[in-house]
């Protein structure tokens, strides 16, 4: 019965999203029914589309799992976009620096590089919050804006493919990465690659971390009440830093997978964050909220939002409705979910604990 009540929020949110989606489609003169059919078909119709949905879901699972760690520690992480880019950049640099090693050696190294890159991008706002009382909502957003410029600088300058310079086209992209750094395709003929199971395993690992390890216990204790955690001898500052570092490392892994699983086997930019990340840093927040801030529920939730994204691509192709519709719908889902009682009570605990952290920020 509890499950049923738990499912009520996502189901209602989905209905609300469909309702507003239909209104938006009508507003721009497209048929909602045709639109819905195109979206469902694009998302889940046939193996090829399912594989594409799974691939789109992958960064959402990882970012979403990271969001649950941060939020359960009462730290807000809006920096997913920047963390993805940080991970992707370090993965790219590492892969280009290494000789063409066999995948069994190469892949763990370059995936780890992504994790480290994202961890650094998460640790900075984490440490700034813990030790300098810098509001992490703002600092993570600002780091996104810094990372997009860093990506553009590196891909237009030091990391640009020499072939692009030679031909004079100067498309901002790196050289093709070594073959060993390519994520193996699991189902021949589709885009389904090893990144998908890696993300699922990572989300399960986050669940184990949060509820089955001492570190997870400390993170959740801080998230529940920093003052009580401090009284129990838990180092609040270190755990706040840890939470954003873990969240960042998952975003970084998502960035690594985006590069290593890309069709071009390289990193490229159109000058915007979304052009590389597909807004996964934000959509991951949506997926995590929709999954009730639980890492396991974030998995099916991410598949749903991955489906929304691939469905929107199909919508653009067959009805000429811009795929930005999916972003607008995600916004509506967020507003709805955070207005619903169940998720709200969880988030209110978080915001109260955040305030407590700020109030006693100076000491300990």
């Amino acid at each position, binding site marked *: 019965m509890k499950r049923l009540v738990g499912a009520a929020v996502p189901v209602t949110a989905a209905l609300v999203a469909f309702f507003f989606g239909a209104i*938006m489609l009508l507003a721009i003169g497209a048929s909602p029914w045709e639109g819905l059919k195109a979206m469902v078909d694009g998302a889940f119709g046939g193996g090829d589309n399912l594989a594409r949905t799974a691939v789109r879901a992958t960064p959402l699972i990882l970012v979403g799992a990271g969001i649950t760690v941060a939020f359960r520690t009462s730290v807000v992480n809006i920096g997913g976009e920047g963390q993805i880019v940080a991970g992707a950049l370090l993965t790219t640099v590492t892969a280009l620096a290494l000789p063409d090693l066999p995948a069994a050696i190469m892949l763990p190294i370059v995936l780890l590089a992504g994790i480290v890159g994202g961890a650094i991008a998460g640790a900075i706002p984490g440490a700034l919050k813990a030790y*300098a009382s810098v*509001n992490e909502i703002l600092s993570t*957003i600002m780091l996104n804006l*810094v990372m997009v410029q860093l990506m553009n600088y590196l891909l237009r300058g030091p990391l640009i493919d020499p072939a692009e310079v030679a031909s004079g086209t100067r498309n901002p992209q790196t050289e093709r990465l070594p073959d060993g750094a390519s994520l193996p395709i699991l189902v021949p003929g589709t885009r389904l690659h090893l990144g998908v199971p890696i993300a699922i395993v990572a989300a399960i690992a986050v669940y184990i971390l949060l509820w089955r390890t001492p570190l997870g216990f400390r993170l959740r204790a801080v998230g529940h009440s920093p003052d009580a955690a401090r009284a129990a001898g838990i180092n609040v500052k270190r755990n706040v830093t840890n939470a954003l570092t873990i969240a960042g490392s998952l975003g970084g892994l998502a960035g690594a997978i985006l590069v290593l699983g890309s069709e071009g086997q390289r990193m490229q930019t159109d000058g915007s964050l979304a052009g590389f990340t597909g807004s996964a840093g934000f959509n991951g927040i949506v997926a995590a909220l929709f999954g009730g801030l639980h890492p396991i529920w974030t998995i099916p939730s991410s598949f749903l939002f991955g489906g929304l994204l691939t469905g929107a691509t199909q919508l653009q192709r067959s009805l000429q409705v811009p795929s*930005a*519709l999916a972003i607008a719908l*995600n916004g509506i889902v967020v507003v709805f979910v955070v207005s619903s009682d169940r998720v709200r009570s969880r988030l209110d605990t978080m915001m109260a604990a955040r305030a407590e952290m700020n109030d006693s920020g100076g000491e300990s």
Partner: protein
Amino acid sequence: MSDFFTASILVATIASGIRLATPYLFASLGETIGQKSGVLNLGVDGVMLLSAFFGYWTVLERDNLWLAVAVSLVVGLVMGLIYATITVFFHATQGISGIGIFLFGLGFSELMFRRQVGTPLPVDKLPKIEIPLLADIPWLGEALFQHNPLTYAAFLAVPVVVFMLNKTTFGMNVRAVGENPQAADSLGVSVARTRFIAIVIGNTFAGLAGAALVLELGIFQQNLTNGLGFIAVALVYFGAWRPVGVMTGSLLYGLVAATVLQWKAQGIIPRGASDIASMAPAVLTILALILLANRVPAPAALTRPFARH
């Protein structure tokens, strides 16, 4: 390098800095009013994108700049009504619901732009108005008194907001419900109504910020703001929740941005490093947040929903 310090270039840079400060100023003044009432609005960027797009579209279709400003203002107002409703009546968690508003604005403005306009077509910009006599003062006149009407309006709004927050009953109520809603409630101040109005005013300012941005650039593209609205939220912390502080911060950002543009044009910043130079506003914000963190306390009830018990 020496070229930059010739008087005419300095004056032009200051004038352009003031122009660039305008959207920051509108947005952060609005955010100040909302935060003073205890409500964080992270959706400013999304509201700016929506108002900028609809203002731009109005100019394209109707060729009427003042109608465009009015449309942007109304878009801000409507978004304010929506955000106020979900915040005050549904007690949505503010730090996150604002992200929802942002995503909606980002997505819907792009959807409408791609569907209804397609490619970025340039439109008329707001005309410059030279203030009689003052505009003729050497150097100073060009820097301060040859701007478009929205720029004047933004700076004139500063003393108005100061007066409103400090000298009017509504302003007192705003500050009271932002500091101690329980006490304000027990004195008969409606927390819900005060916050609702503060949020709507704040978002209307964000709507004007969108108009100021798009009608200064004369063009729209997806994600036009590029994080400007988020920086405006940070400016409220920077300005310590005071309109004058917020204005100082906005001017600083405008001047930094103008200097970067000028240096790029003059080749002082080499082309290869221009992306690095574009980091300046965000890096500046992080540094400011580090330096100013906890110097001035935020409104005590910021982000805390209020419910009578």
